[in-house]
């Protein structure tokens, strides 16, 4: 409570003029800080490897070279990993939308006898978790999903958060839609697919984005269950492995100058390669992002209202 300023109109007017300018400067700086690492990575990936070891590259490559990309794109493992990442993303997204939207509809029907039980049990999973080891044992010892493609698909078919997002959206649709269809003799399955589902497109786009990004970005499932199966590695996991190797060399470089000389002499350029894989594995998200942008904010708000 600044009573002094409160009465001093001149000071206040002064603030009102300065504030928008300062605000704009802060926000522009923030955008710069947000984008800098991304642009910097792209610049490194397009720079000559040996030259990149000298560091100091900012927003534009110093010595242009597409060698890093050439070397990556000539590696069949990258194509295999991209195929794994892309296919699992598509399958998981479709399965999630199918199951979650149907379930959400059923749980908006007030007359449904099992509504309370199922909803409570599902929402509880957001707070209570069996934990990492019991889940690990379920997948490896009970279901034997390790070292298979299915470990990407089966454990990630449903998420309660997404159910809440879709349910909130459906609950906001006019009840009369369902009532009138029922009078016309339609069952719930038909009502859902023919009337509700088409109306849910915006919220389904949101959920699709969440699920697809989550699946595309996951690396830990590969690490835990499929680390020894090279043909099942995902793009993110390839990058994670590159990260581990360059980190080792970075530490070594710090420890002794010899190590740095070795890195340069071997003519491998782990930093630029790492940056190039980063760019390749980010590209799909960067391409899709602007188009789906308008959807996800609505989804976030829908989910958190009831969350």
């Amino acid at each position, binding site marked *: 409570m600044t009573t002094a*300023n*409160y009465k001093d*109109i001149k000071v206040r007017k002064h603030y*009102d003029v300065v*504030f*928008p300018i300062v*605000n*704009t400067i*802060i926000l522009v700086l*923030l*955008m710069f*800080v*947000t984008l*800098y*690492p*991304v642009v*910097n990575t792209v610049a*490194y990936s397009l720079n000559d490897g040996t030259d990149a070891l000298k560091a*100091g590259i900012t927003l534009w490559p110093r010595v242009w070279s597409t060698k890093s990309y050439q070397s990556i794109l000539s590696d069949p493992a990258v194509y295999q990993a991209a195929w794994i990442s892309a296919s699992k993303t598509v399958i998981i997204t479709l399965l999630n939308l199918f*199951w979650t939207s149907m*379930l959400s*509809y*059923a749980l908006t*029907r*007030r*007359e*449904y*006898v*099992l509504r*309370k039980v199922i909803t409570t*049990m599902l929402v509880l999973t957001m*707070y209570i*978790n*069996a*934990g*990492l*080891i*019991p889940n690990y044992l*379920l997948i490896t010892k009970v279901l034997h999903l390790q070292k298979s493609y299915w470990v990407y698909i089966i454990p990630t078919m*449903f998420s309660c958060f997404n159910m809440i997002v879709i349910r909130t959206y459906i609950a906001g649709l006019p009840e009369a839609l369902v009532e009138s269809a029922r009078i016309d003799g339609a*069952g*719930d*399955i038909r009502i859902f697919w023919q009337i509700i589902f088409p109306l849910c497109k915006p919220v389904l786009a949101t959920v699709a984005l969440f699920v697809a990004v989550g699946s595309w*970005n996951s690396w830990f499932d590969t690490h*835990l269950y499929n680390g020894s199966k090279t043909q099942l590695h995902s793009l*993110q996991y390839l*990058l*994670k492995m*590159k*990260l581990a190797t360059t980190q080792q060399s*970075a*530490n070594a470089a*710090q420890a002794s100058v010899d190590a740095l000389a070795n890195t340069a002499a071997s003519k491998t350029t782990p930093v630029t390669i790492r940056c190039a894989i*980063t760019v390749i*594995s980010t590209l799909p998200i960067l391409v899709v992002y*602007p188009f789906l*942008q308008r959807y*996800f904010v609505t989804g*976030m*708000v829908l989910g958190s209202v009831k969350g």
Partner: protein
Amino acid sequence: MTNSVQGQNRHYSPKKKSTFSKLLSQWQLMLMSVPIFLYVLLFNYFPMWGWVNAFKDYGNRKLVAKGITPWIGLNNFKWLFSRPDFFQAIRNTLAMSVINLVFGTVSAVLLAVLLNEVRQKTFKKTVQTVTYLPHFLSMVIVVAMAQNIFASNGPVNDLLVALHIVKEPVFWLGEGKHFWWLVGIINVWKEVGWGTIIYISAMTSIDPALYEAASIDGAGRFQRILHVTLPGIKSTFVILLIMNIGHLMEAGFEIQYLLGNGLTAAYSRTIDIFVLEYGTQMMDFGVATAAGIFKSVVAIILLVGANFIAKRLGEETLV
């Protein structure tokens, strides 16, 4: 619960049917919901059976190989609490989640307030679009970028040296004492924009008449922020705080796992990483499960406690 279900039945069907026959008539709804319900039972509830492992001995390799795991009561828990590295993991988890919570909340509220003051729609949209972006990048990618940015010869060190804040480049990634703060900064970078969404939506529901009234009473921009905007997001703030306090034991493990290295291990090992190392590398499921249970129990106590405090303060609660 039974009462409310019956109440609904009466509301929707004047003819009183038994619950069972009603359920039969709802076979279509059951078809739509029961399969996924069974799926959740299998993947979320059935594994809880695995908690019994916490009371078994996985220490004797020969016996485990034969499939014999004797019951040892609370010995795994006793052993855990005699381990300095477990306390270290608890310390690291709490330190990083508190830093994340404070940094994350303050930065998101601050940015939301600043964005709320922007009158120019296109500029506001642009800032939002740009700052939401990092949320969608995987932690692997974020860590890859962080390794460039915080490298000994990277831009952060260049800037600090140029501004004469430090004399020598700082070895950000290799010194344990920096690790927690590095994680905090990277998390803010990744999530600050995304964190504003919920606050901005709370701000848009503030009655514009309040701002007008404040202006007429002679309140300037800062007074309006202080006395209208911030009180307007108070209940959202409290709910998110409760949720986050319930998640204090979740400092995340991806960033620590990927960014940590041998030099920073004493500061980067969280409870999750501890569980992973004991469970999936040393195959001591007993100790790992016990550590996991400890984490869950503390998390539930925190959630219930925070919820209770919120109730006492007269705020909306979660449960």
